[in-house]
């Protein structure tokens, strides 16, 4: 079947893609700048068509625990929120990671800390990629940079989540959530009729009972479990790194940016090249796993790297680790809900590496 062309906001694209991907349940609580997701779902009323459950919870905490309950039944379930709400969900996310449950969490990031602002930011990178809640765990983190990817990554997220029994986060931001672009939507997929064998669906006589828990009071068994998680994360690091390169072939200076900042930096690369500066862009699509190997390779070819983020400098730490001291690495970014302009990036590139 052909893909359907629509003009949509990033938030709306997530909602529509969820219905089309055969998601079983959405549980959320409104917060700017992503409330269009639950509004769209309530208006579309997929209960009548696909049978998808859409529920407005009493809090982000309740919503993420509903995701826990639904995911433990082997269902495709998701929640969405924005930074302060994602902080509230961290307890539940930790339990989901500890119980090895697949699910999708979308963070349409706004500026912080605290209530911060409702404008776009990328200041939740640490929280998303380094765990976020308590305990040793990782989410798989995808960073969409267009409305198209907001739609496409819904299905990709569930594929990865079920493949690895691991929660997946789409780390977006207010700009992509609120922006309208063309989007080609995949045809409707039916909801899954079967569930994985570990799911709690009522114990038939043919199997042992299934227990979904993240608790083990025996330190030896708990450590074994931690090792199992580590092995899983290593496998994810090995197999699931995704990134995009833009004019890197002859680049002397490499910009590293994801999401909205990567869109800005594409323009910066053009502007820099117009001024005779050979810039290139590496856009991580997966933030965990991070494209460490590729950045290390490129560090052998360029004179320096600039990590461009709408934050005080978070991803830059992963770039530094990847580069291992081969070339200088700097950070440039605006904060507080201000989106970096392409010109500012070029100015920063010049002042840090070229002088003037």
């Amino acid at each position, binding site marked *: 079947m052909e893909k359907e*062309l629509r*003009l949509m906001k990033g938030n709306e694209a997530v909602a529509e893609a969820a219905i089309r991907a055969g998601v079983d349940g959405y549980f959320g609580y409104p917060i700017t700048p992503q409330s269009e997701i639950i509004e769209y779902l309530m208006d579309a009323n997929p209960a009548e068509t696909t049978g998808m459950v859409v529920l407005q919870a009493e809090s982000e905490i309740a919503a993420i625990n509903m995701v826990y309950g639904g995911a433990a039944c082997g269902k495709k379930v998701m929640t969405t929120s924005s930074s302060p709400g994602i902080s509230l969900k961290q307890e539940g996310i930790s339990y989901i990671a500890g119980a090895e449950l697949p699910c999708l969490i979308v963070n349409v990031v706004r500026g912080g800390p605290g209530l911060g602002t409702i404008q776009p930011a990328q200041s939740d990178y640490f929280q998303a990629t380094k765990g976020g809640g308590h305990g040793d765990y990782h989410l798989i983190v995808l960073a969409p940079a267009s409305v198209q990817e907001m739609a496409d990554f819904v299905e990709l997220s569930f594929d990865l989540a079920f493949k690895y029994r691991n929660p997946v986060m789409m780390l977006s931001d207010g700009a992509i959530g609120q922006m*309208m672009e*063309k989007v080609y939507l995949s045809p409707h997929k039916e909801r899954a009729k079967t569930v994985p064998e570990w799911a709690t669906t009522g114990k038939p006589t043919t199997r042992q009972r299934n227990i979904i828990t993240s608790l083990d009071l025996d330190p030896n068994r708990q450590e074994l479990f931690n090792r199992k998680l580590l092995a899983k994360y290593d496998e994810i690091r090995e197999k699931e790194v995704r990134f995009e390169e833009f004019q890197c072939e002859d680049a002397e200076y490499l910009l590293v940016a994801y999401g909205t900042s990567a869109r*800005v930096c594409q323009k910066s690369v*053009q502007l820099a090249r117009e001024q005779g500066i050979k810039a290139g862009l590496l856009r991580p699509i997966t933030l965990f796993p991070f494209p460490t190997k590729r950045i290390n390779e490129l560090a052998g070819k360029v004179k320096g790297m600039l990590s461009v983020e709408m934050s005080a400098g978070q991803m830059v730490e992963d770039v530094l680790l990847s580069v291992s001291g081969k070339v200088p690495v700097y950070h440039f970014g605006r904060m507080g809900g201000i989106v970096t*302009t392409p010109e500012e990036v070029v100015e920063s590139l010049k002042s840090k590496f070229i002088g003037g």
Partner: protein
Amino acid sequence: MTEEIIIAGFGGQGVLSMGKIMAYSGVIQDMEVSWMPSYGPEMRGGTANVIVIISSDRISSPIIKRFDTAIILNQQSLDKFESSIKSGGVLIYDGNGITRHPERKDINIYRVDAAEEASRMNSPKIFNTIVLGGFLKVKPIIKLENVIKGLKKSLPERYHNLIPMNEKALKRGEEIIKEVQKAG
């Protein structure tokens, strides 16, 4: 072809929806488009603006600071965005409520008194479509038939009875827009 536009005015003037019509029309004309609103409390009064990019190529940054065209609908927005227009670019403004008129000499300036015209036509809601008509006269980047189709797409079906009125408004905008200054 790439046209980078900012539309700015009061919330409630139809700034965002004018941008939406442009974006839908661009899609119908098989162009790449992006529509990036300022969002938040501005939506309920105060100032609102939206950046619309229409291009024959893939759009890189949807957020930019320099524009080919600025469509300005109140004084605050004129003060804020006059300096953001590229040299040789276009400023279209409605003179209603403007006390300090544009001062730059290196841009093309057009005036479309749409507020006045809309009240003359007894239909304040078509204000933004009159402005859009004026824009299309100056920058005929989208065919009128595609704009009508764009209108249909961006309006909920229950408002489709308003389309003939809007078509009239688009044409009226084309008629009343006048050149104030050619870039020097």
